[in-house]
């Protein structure tokens, strides 16, 4: 039976509407998977050599500092893992209704759907860090090998706890708010240095190294949670329970103050409603907010990167981060134009709509998002000095003047339909934005980073920023030309897009 259900899944994967003609998306996806695996692997190698918060390199002989430091940070690692899973990991989708009346045990349906998630890359990716990290620690001779093995087994156990916990988070709103509030509280307490959670984190995770049998409890928790989630879904396999549509009470949103912007406003009003009412679309906003802080990853580690590969490399990495900080919403929303309208694309194509007005409204919304992001990002990164703010602004110009068009243009070829109304899924998967989305942006980011890197290396930081901002400004002036090209792409792709969006 398991095999047969697997067969169904395989067919869905192969024959689904989204399967054909998406080679680029697939390549990008694999590019991303390899990228993250590689980064994890390198982090594992590097982390095993560093000695804690001061990041002294290389560490002294006979110290256990990297291990202790990691244990300190693990609480945050798992907190982020929970958040990332909630927003990015897509839960299994199985055509449950069709199977309900088939001679299949309900437990088998649920078991299959749950166990399928065991091999998602959220669970596999950490191994790329853990294995080299542990291996190098073991090789250094400062650690007890049994302890390390059980410590690893425990970490994997906790990863699976978050895996099954994610199912509950997606289905129980109260739990979601509770966890959200707790995480925010932890972050706040840490930020204002009321409690240092890293001390407890260190003690807790070190326990599994010191007392290997404690690992049993983690795995008992994994199995208990699996059983609980299984039972929970089993109860929900009725048309009026878990499989029922949740209907929200509707309220009219009057955005008539936008009417002064003419035809563009007609579409912006709808897009605002979309962002407000569709969970899937809201995720784009949340991701945009999340990306505001992406630059912190690089900016806060500038010293480390410049030790590793020189000052201009470090600045280049930060520049990369700033680009994403201001462009997060632009990518998250823009990559899915016109897919946001995929469900009613035939309607749009039979109305008296000029592509120019349609694209202009999407573009305007992306630019508004970018401007807001830029204001917030300039504030956040002002703590790293004026040079950081220059870089943020340069990135913003580039995003507005170049990436806005590129994203729209790429959208004409993306053609992956979005089911905005998919709240009826038994597993509570609202098809939040998947990892693929994140990866579309990477290639677009290479050019400005390279321009910045080379100009700043030959001249200085400010010239580098000006060069990138100059490209962006040029792009802003070339808007009519860019729009003409994008419009042509949309027109030639019209019929195949309609076909790709057709779901019935």
């Amino acid at each position, binding site marked *: 039976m398991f095999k047969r259900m697997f067969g169904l899944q395989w067919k869905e994967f192969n024959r689904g509407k989204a399967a054909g003609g998406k080679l680029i998306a697939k390549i990008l996806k694999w590019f991303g998977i390899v990228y993250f695996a590689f980064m994890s692997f390198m982090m594992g190698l590097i982390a095993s050599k560093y000695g804690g918060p001061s990041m002294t390199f290389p560490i002294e002989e006979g110290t256990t500092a990297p291990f202790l430091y990691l244990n300190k940070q693990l609480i945050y690692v798992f907190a982020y893992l929970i958040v990332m899973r909630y927003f990015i990991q897509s839960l299994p989708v199985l055509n449950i209704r069709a199977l309900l009346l088939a001679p299949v045990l309900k437990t088998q349906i649920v078991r299959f759907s749950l166990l399928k998630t065991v091999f998602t890359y959220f669970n596999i990716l950490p191994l790329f860090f853990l294995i080299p990290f542990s291996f190098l620690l073991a090789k250094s001779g400062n650690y007890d090998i049994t302890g390390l093995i059980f410590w690893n087994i425990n970490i994997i156990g906790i990863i699976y706890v978050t895996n099954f916990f994610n199912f509950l988070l997606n289905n129980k709103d109260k739990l979601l708010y509770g966890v959200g509030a707790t995480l925010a509280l932890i972050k706040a307490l840490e930020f204002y240095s009321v409690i240092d959670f890293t001390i407890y984190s260190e003690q807790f995770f070190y326990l599994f190294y010191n007392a290997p049998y404690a690992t049993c409890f983690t795995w008992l928790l994994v199995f208990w949670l699996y059983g609980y989630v299984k039972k929970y879904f089993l109860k929900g396999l009725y048309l009026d329970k878990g499989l029922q549509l949740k*209907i*929200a009470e*509707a309220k*009219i949103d009057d955005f008539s103050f936008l009417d002064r912007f003419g035809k563009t406003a007609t579409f912006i009003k*709808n897009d605002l409603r979309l962002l407000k009412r569709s969970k899937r679309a809201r995720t784009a906003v949340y991701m945009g907010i999340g990306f505001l802080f992406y630059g912190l990853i690089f900016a806060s580690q500038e010293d480390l990167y410049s030790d590793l590969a020189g000052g201009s490399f470090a600045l280049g990495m930060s520049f990369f981060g700033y680009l994403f900080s201001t462009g997060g919403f632009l990518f998250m929303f823009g990559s899915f134009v016109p897919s946001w309208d995929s469900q*009613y694309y035939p*309607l749009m194509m*039979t109305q008296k709509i000029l592509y120019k007005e349609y694209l202009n409204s999407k573009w305007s919304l992306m630019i508004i998002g970018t401007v807001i992001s830029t204001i917030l990002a300039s504030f956040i990164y002002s703590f790293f000095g004026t040079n950081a703010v220059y870089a943020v602004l340069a990135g913003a110009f580039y995003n507005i003047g170049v990436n806005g068009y590129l994203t729209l243009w790429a959208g004409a070829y993306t053609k992956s339909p979005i089911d905005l109304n998919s709240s009826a899924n038994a597993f509570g998967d609202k098809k939040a934005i998947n990892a693929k989305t994140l990866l579309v942006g990477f290639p677009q980011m290479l050019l400005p980073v390279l321009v910045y890197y080379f100009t700043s290396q030959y001249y200085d930081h400010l010239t580098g920023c000006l060069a990138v901002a100059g490209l962006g400004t040029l792009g802003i002036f070339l808007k009519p030309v860019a729009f003409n090209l994008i419009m042509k792409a949309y027109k030639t792709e019209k019929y195949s897009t309609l076909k790709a969006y057709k779901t019935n």
Partner: protein
Amino acid sequence: MIKIENLTKKYLKQTVLDIDSIDIPLGQTFGLIGNNGAGKTTLFSCLLDLIKPTKGKVINNDVDVSKSEDWKSFTTAFLDETFLIGYLMPEEYFYFIGELRGLNKKEVDSFLAQFEDFFHGEILGGKKYLRDLSKGNQKKAGVIAALIGEPKVVILDEPFANLDPTTQIRLKSIVKDMSKNKDVTVLVSSHDIQDVTEVCERIVLLEKGRVIKDLVTSPETLKELESYFKGE
């Protein structure tokens, strides 16, 4: 008003549409009937430039639909739920369509007032988004939206299917009213021979993409169609 010339659509080697010529004059209420796979929806999709025909063309009021988009200003359609915007409330949807066709809120409101009976209190003033309405109510909203803005050509794909009896009767009388208005060309498709003979002035029977019969509706039409589908 609408001229269909040598229209063919092929998928791989299968021909799904092969029409020599159909000429629909202004003001005619035109019915399309046929079994599944007869090509009704494909034909309508070609008329609306949603599908590119393999050969031939469609001229709508002197506009070649695949060359210019001018036909959009006087043509409206409701084919299926892909003509609805799920996350909007019915009112917001009507206003949106109205805005695209140059009507303000007040004008849309007064237009909708005449359909109060038809909506039966289930569309306007509710607290649901279109995505949460039943299929029948979704269809009501979609069909009425297709009438906003005094279109000259209205295309409806199976408008009577899946409606409750009261709504069916009311919708038929709406279509009949339109057919009295000699400025509106209405194209309707259906699976139900009774429905088309009741509302349409002319009926074209499609089978595997070809025109089998082209009839002016008369008292004998129903019998003729019945005997065809019985296989006599």
